């Protein structure tokens, strides 16, 4: 069998995107590691060891007595326990008869039981999949992931901290407490704060309806059901299910984000648009268009090229060409010129304009003789 030649897609923009996301994730992991590192280990001394041994013996005696009296509740631990999983495997553990927890790959999670019987999982990194008994009258069960707290109403859900915070509910209902509000997330729904910044911040300036109702979390699965349990200061929404109306407004391409005012906002919005590409390409495109109208030329140029790439993925070559024309007109010296030139060739090919694509490829070779697309461009010219 001959060698099957598959050329990987080579794009400086793609490499930069991967690099940026990678180092953001690494920074998040380092922060989590540092947080773990600053927890002082217990000091060991001979006296403490003796006291510890005595305490253990007392605990064993107490446990044995307790089991003898009521064997059903003897398995609960009061001391914090930490579970750390390696990069390539998961670990399943049970917490008394209350929960079965799967710590996903590369996860660090610590759990402890309060005096009142409440159970708290502290997620330092990674993700946990929890199956919890319904809490009818039982002590609370919480998962804390950074500044996000998930309180179980019942019964099965996944909390992810790295690479990005996320809550997925398989059965029952949980309450998510995060900066900016509290949300109930029900079976079949997901919650992530990733796009809140991008949708919320520019909207505060432009969309009074959204501004009045406060930030909306990104709910990725349909049917969209979000009820807001807190936010008493916010005025009542026109519908009883305010999250639902918020979601519709936020997702509609006719109400994109406002053009970002600063470079930081543009960067955040760009990052959010990238995340949205897979889940909601129309909203991602609307966000790219808004960034293109922003004050930061660098991000505006990048957003136009990203928009063209997205249009190509969506099989809309004419829209891609429009974005590329605008890019060429407004940013003739943009750093994204090379990628833009290649996407133009791709768009023309998709439209079946072979001669124009060949001409564009020849232009590309003249302008970027050492470019990353030289090989496929040369093939086209031939």
């Amino acid at each position: 069998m001959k060698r099957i030649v598959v050329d990987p897609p080579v794009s400086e923009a793609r490499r930069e995107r991967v690099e940026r996301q990678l180092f953001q994730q690494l920074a998040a992991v380092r922060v989590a590691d540092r947080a773990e590192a600053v927890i002082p280990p217990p000091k060991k001394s001979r006296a403490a060891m003796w006291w510890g041994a005595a305490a253990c013996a007392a605990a064993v005696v107490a446990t044995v007595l307790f089991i003898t009296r009521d064997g059903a509740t003897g398995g609960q631990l009061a001391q914090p326990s930490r579970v750390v999983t390696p990069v390539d495997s998961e670990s399943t553990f049970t917490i008394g008869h209350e929960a079965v927890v799967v710590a996903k790959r590369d996860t660090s999670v610590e759990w402890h039981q309060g005096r009142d019987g409440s159970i708290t999982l502290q997620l330092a990194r990674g993700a946990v999949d929890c199956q919890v008994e319904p809490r009818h009258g039982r002590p609370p069960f919480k998962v804390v992931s950074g500044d996000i707290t998930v309180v179980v109403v019942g019964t099965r859900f996944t909390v992810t901290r790295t690479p990005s915070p996320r809550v997925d509910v398989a059965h029952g209902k949980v309450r998510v407490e995060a900066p900016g509000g509290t949300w109930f997330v029900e079976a079949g729904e997901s919650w992530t704060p990733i796009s809140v910044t991008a949708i919320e911040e520019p909207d505060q300036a432009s969309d009074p309806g959204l501004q009045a109702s406060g930030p909306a979390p990104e709910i990725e699965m349909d049917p969209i059901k979000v009820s807001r349990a807190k936010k008493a200061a916010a005025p009542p929404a026109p519908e009883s299910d305010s999250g639902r109306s918020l979601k519709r407004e936020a997702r509609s391409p006719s109400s994109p984000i406002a053009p970002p005012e600063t470079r930081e906002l543009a960067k955040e919005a760009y990052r959010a648009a990238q995340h949205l590409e897979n889940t909601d390409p129309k909203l991602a495109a609307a966000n790219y268009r808004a960034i293109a109208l922003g004050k930061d030329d660098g991000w505006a140029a990048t957003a136009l090229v990203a928009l063209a790439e997205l249009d190509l993925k969506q099989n809309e070559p004419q829209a891609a060409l429009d974005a590329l024309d605008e890019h060429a007109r407004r940013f003739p010296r943009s750093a994204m010129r090379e990628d833009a030139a290649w996407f133009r060739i791709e768009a023309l090919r998709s439209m079946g304009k072979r001669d124009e694509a060949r001409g564009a490829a020849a232009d590309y070779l003249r302008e970027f003789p050492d470019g990353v697309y030289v090989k496929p461009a040369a093939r086209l010219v031939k």
Partner: protein
Amino acid sequence: MGLSIVERPTPEDDAELVAACVAGDMAAQRALFRREYPRVNATVYRLIGSARDADDLVQETFIAVFRGLPRFRGDSKLATWIDRIAVRVVFHHIRDRGRAPIPLDVIGDVEGNGGSTDAQAHARDGLRRFYAALAELTPEARTAFALFAIDGRSISEVAQVTQTSFVAAKCRIWRARREIMKKAKDDPVLAELVKEDR
């Protein structure tokens, strides 16, 4: 052919770079990423055939690389060690995903297709069928065969990065090849792609 490393690093370079990365030198980490990215990206993409998944898996690979660097003893070349991690990450992805449908963004060019748009479309169709046939194989056979037939590695290199014996790697490749050729008998587009060299 196929691999795009411009400069082959010396072990001394590797040792210095690794030491700087472990010490937390961000510039060194970025340098390592930029040096290794083209090869890792190419290998990951060739193994799964989807640019979208490839980006995620490349990120996952480098996160594992940077977290594992303090444990890198230098017994093998750094590039080989990174390739092993990349292959392991892709292997887990393939195994977890099962026989999911093949993504439509599989692109690529086939040698000697003449460069016309029709030929390109035909070649892409062949590649889609090829990746669909690969998806029917066991993750072990698929990984070994893709490394051999698409990424252009020798059997001993395949054995090295999949951490199996030479014989095991050879058997996996042989079995995978047999299955692919069996499918090619009923599929002229696939047959044209995988036809034997004369």
